């Protein structure tokens, strides 16, 4: 037991249970980070619900740089298209910290071009969560809520954007509209605020540091089975790995829930040999699929139809 734990009151510890009620439903049952995307700009803010305030009109070109140029500068600053295109798959091991976790969880993300993804989160005493996309089926299993297929809809769309490998360089496919809507101070950085709109009209915001051209913050809405969750994510500690730069520290806050989730990258590998079943569906997911294919339980034999009334001669 740690010293800090000793000094914590029981009731404060107990409050963790309360927080976990939500946490379990939000950050665990539907972990934002399990939208397969280390918080890189094109995928972290996969969608956002809030409409842009009236004041956030796209900037006149004379006042602000275009969103296209800001995003392209980011791609260049993070390694350039050529560097991204050399990468075919990726495995990331991250440490996930939340106040109520006894010890940090471990998150492992595996992605492969073009759209295969799987995330395993080992939450220690809480259990293991998995989610993924095998190219056709988006799925999730959770020790609390059980297995589920992520059906067609906003949640699946967001997940598909998340599993798109090297989504950074495919932003034109992922967003139908990008606009620079202003500049704001984020921490110590002066940042361009860019609004990203998907073809299905999900809106998110990314804040690009004007000096480094790297994102420092995103505002998004996580689409989950239990509801939309507005998140603010800060991105920092950008480091180069195999020619591209990645944010090694991601801190996400959820609106309305006093919980902060911190992700720290511990290991990144690219172009590795993945096992054949790296993206295979778990058995309980296959079971759900099979049950959907199976004919429904036969109804009880119908009673013989009453004989038709004899026709009058």
């Amino acid at each position, binding site marked *: 037991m740690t010293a800090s734990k000793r000094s914590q*009151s029981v009731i404060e*510890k107990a409050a963790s*249970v309360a927080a976990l009620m939500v946490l379990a439903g939000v950050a665990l049952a539907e972990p934002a980070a399990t939208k397969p995307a280390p918080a890189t700009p094109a995928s972290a803010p996969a969608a956002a619900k809030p409409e842009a305030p009236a004041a956030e009109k796209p900037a006149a070109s004379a006042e602000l740089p275009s969103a296209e140029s800001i995003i392209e500068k980011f791609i260049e600053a993070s390694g350039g298209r050529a560097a991204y295109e050399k990468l075919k798959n990726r495995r990331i091991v991250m440490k996930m910290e939340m106040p109520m976790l006894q010890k940090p969880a471990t998150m492992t993300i595996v992605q492969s071009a073009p759209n295969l993804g799987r995330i395993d989160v080992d939450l220690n005493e809480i259990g293991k969560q998995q989610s993924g996309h095998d190219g056709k089926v988006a799925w999730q299993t959770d*020790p609390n809520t059980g297995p589920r297929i992520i059906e067609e809809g906003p949640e699946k769309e967001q997940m598909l954007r998340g599993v798109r490998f090297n989504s950074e360089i495919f932003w034109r496919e992922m967003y139908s509209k990008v606009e620079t809507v202003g500049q704001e101070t984020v921490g110590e950085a002066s940042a361009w605020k860019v609004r990203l709109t998907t073809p299905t009209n999900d809106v998110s915001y990314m804040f690009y540091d004007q000096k480094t051209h790297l994102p420092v913050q995103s505002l998004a809405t996580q689409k989950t089975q239990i509801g*939309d969750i507005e998140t603010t994510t800060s991105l920092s500690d950008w480091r180069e790995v195999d020619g591209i730069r990645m944010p090694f520290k991601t801190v996400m806050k959820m609106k*309305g829930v006093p919980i902060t989730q911190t992700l720290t990258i511990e290991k990144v590998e690219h172009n590795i040999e993945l096992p054949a079943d790296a993206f295979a569906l778990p058995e309980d997911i296959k079971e759900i699929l099979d049950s959907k294919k199976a004919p429904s339980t036969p109804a009880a034999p119908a009673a013989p139809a009453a004989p038709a009334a004899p026709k009058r001669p």
Partner: protein
Amino acid sequence: MRSFGRWPERENGEGLMTTKTPGRMGWRARFGGAAALAVAAGLMLGGCRSTPREATPEVAMTADQRLKSVESFDKVWTTIRDSHWDPSLGGLDWEGVRAELRPKAEAAATMGEVRGVMGEMIGRLGLSHFGIIPGDAYEAAEAKPEVERASTPESGRGAGEPGSPGLELRLLPRADGRPVAVVKSVEAGGGAASAGVKPGWILDSVGGREVAPVLARLSEAMKDKGSRNLVMTRAVEGWFEGDEGDRVRAEWTDGRGRTVRTKVALGPRRGTKIEMMNLPPEWVRMEARRIDQRIGYLSLNIFLAPNVVSPWWNERVREFRDAPGIVVDLRGNPGGIAAMAMGMSGWFIADSGQTLGTLTTRGGPLRLVVNPRVNGFRGPVAVLVDELSASTSEIMASGLQGRPNVRVFGVRTAGAALPSVFEKLPNGDRFQYAFANLVDDKGRRLEGDGVTPDEVIPLTREALLAGRDPVLERAVAWIMERSGGSGGPAAPTAPTAPVAPAAATVPNPGGNPGASGR
């Protein structure tokens, strides 16, 4: 030596909430974080309106304390403004409340006065799970009775593993309406059973400390709280605090009205020890069996350790697939991880898109969605609850209630369901606030109201003395009615109307002890 379970010291060194046996867990710790949460919720005392503070003399604050008290007032006001799930606070003029009450906080001369002002501010919300916990609020329950320690260096013991008396208590009303603590059950081979304690006995004192006066004080202090019985029961159970091998003196009134003096040896706690989420250790107890070799029975004492509980639950429900019905016993379960109820309920709900309820936060609604399991159990499910069923237990019971194959039995639950957190204020007090509202899938508010069973079956001392469990008996009978007594799975039918409760009282211990076979 265990050192959690204590409150941190204030900056001035005054114990905010001290335990009388330093290094030992408080009763909240012993009976679990989730229980403690509900307990704490209950002890918010309506924004200090009825805080039992008589034990602490009011002392004039220093200049620094006054400054920090005003800062605390501002902190509470701001937190509510910024975190309440309803930005309009139900139409309350929150700025006006501040303008009216802040001068009073500035003028307060004592800690009690400033707490009163903050309590008045919080009270304007008219909600539970908001409150200030003053340091002495728990004094009545916290004072530890004398325990005969075995865990001394000389004894060679003292591993510090918390022990258990091996009993469960419930509060029942005497004829005059005042509560008494009655033994609900004793564990076979446990300390209480070994000392001869029987279900139905009334607990009169522990370590020389009388139970009745404390229950009376707490009962009065918490008369507005639905979770009153939960708080009081856990408090008295906590008096049996100690390590394995310790012995606790206790006096009882048996079924014949005689006083029985015992020493209850604390034995090992049953269940699987779980340490998670920075909570004190918990012992998760799972029980699965067949009743009459047919009906499935599942009991869980707390919703924690999903990595242990969920696989167990899944496997047992699969095993009971051939049963005419399943009993889900949530009596005494204080709650825990709400999402576990979502998964566990998925075995009993066939349709997708169903929820157990909705949490509303400032960020929007969060639906407690149920994922139906492939080949789930579609026969009758009897859910058993009592006044110690709280939080996630209430979410699960209310979410299942009203479905064609489910019926809830027992007594009204604790009504302590909101997720809340505690924040330390500049003056050292703790501010509890809820950050979400909760309604079940029928739109019912659980907080304060709890879950009223379809069939209300109060516990009676007579039944306990006779070794009966009328709630379980009725649940089994319902399942057999549904299955036509055939023992095979039954077809769902529409839920029936609630059954009115029968009157249930416990004889005044000082008077006629009533019928008893023991």
